[in-house]
């Protein structure tokens, strides 16, 4: 038995020149699951809710109120809630699905050897990076929409004095640093969880990995929450008048 840990996801097969990796496959599976659940609930909406509808209602109502307390206005909440809640639910479900027993045992032969069909979606840096870029674009759009394009550029290029110019440059670096800090936080946590479980399974396969898997479930939910909340806070901060 050999310990195999790789930063890049494994390629399952190619469609034309586009490689299909196992994280991409898994993320489509997660999306499909979410869409099916949404359709089921949408079709069976009742005024007296059943179990599934009750759970979803509690989740959505609670998070809507939470978003409202952070943004502090009804209008902003209406714009932001769909984006933030979709991010939260996608990341949380993708992280939780890793704990389905037996899913890592299914392997596929890609011509060079057998690779697992499933892998934690957020342990692929490309996926996390795209999610981060979406939230960064939302921030910039919010900032431009509230302050207008000239004031927005004026925040970064300020010629009133040397100190203001330097602070404007620092603001620019701060925006770039947000991309790295947001994406590395999520990616690092999930990848570290995967690596830790792999190493522990290698060292002591029976009881030892269990407490770390409980910790992993906690991390899965908390990191999804932190990513969504930070996006929310950043966009709210960007949408305030300078």
């Amino acid at each position: 038995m050999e310990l195999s840990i790789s930063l890049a996801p494994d390629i399952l097969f190619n469609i034309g020149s586009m490689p299909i990796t196992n994280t991409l496959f898994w993320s489509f599976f997660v999306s499909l699951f979410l869409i099916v659940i949404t359709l089921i609930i949408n079709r069976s909406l009742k005024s007296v809710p059943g179990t599934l509808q009750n759970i979803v209602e509690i989740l959505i109502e609670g998070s809507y109120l939470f978003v409202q307390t952070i943004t502090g206005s009804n209008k902003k909440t209406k714009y932001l809630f769909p984006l933030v809640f979709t991010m939260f639910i996608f990341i949380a479900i993708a992280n939780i699905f890793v704990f389905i027993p037996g899913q890592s045992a299914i392997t596929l032969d890609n011509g060079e050897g057998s690779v697992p069909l499933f892998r934690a979606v957020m342990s692929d840096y490309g996926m996390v990076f795209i999610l981060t870029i979406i939230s960064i674009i939302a921030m910039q759009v919010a900032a431009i929409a509230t302050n207008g394009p000239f004031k927005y550029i004026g925040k970064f290029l300020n010629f009133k004095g040397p100190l203001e110019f330097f602070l404007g440059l620092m603001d620019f670096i701060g925006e770039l640093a947000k991309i790295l800090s947001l994406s590395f936080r999520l990616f690092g946590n999930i990848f570290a969880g995967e690596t830790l479980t792999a190493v522990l399974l290698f060292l002591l396969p029976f009881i030892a990995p269990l407490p770390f898997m409980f910790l992993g479930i906690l991390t899965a939910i908390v990191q999804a929450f932190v990513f969504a909340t930070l996006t929310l806070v950043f966009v709210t901060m960007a949408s305030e008048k300078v």
Partner: protein
Amino acid sequence: MEGETLKHLAAGLAIGLGAIGPAIGEGIIASKSLEAIGRNPEAANKITPLMFAAMAITESTGIYALVVALIILFG
């Protein structure tokens, strides 16, 4: 020293030194929130999720160090 040895040494140093800061920070967060719960036990439900969120954000510097160490080892 060989290149491979230096690589292992670098990875160990990166995560070892990088873990000091977040450990202290998380300790401070835990102690302060436990103090707050001790003073006002009814607020425990409100404080606990905030504590976890704050810990996850504090932890991120440690995670950056971990990512660097993993890239050195496996990248």
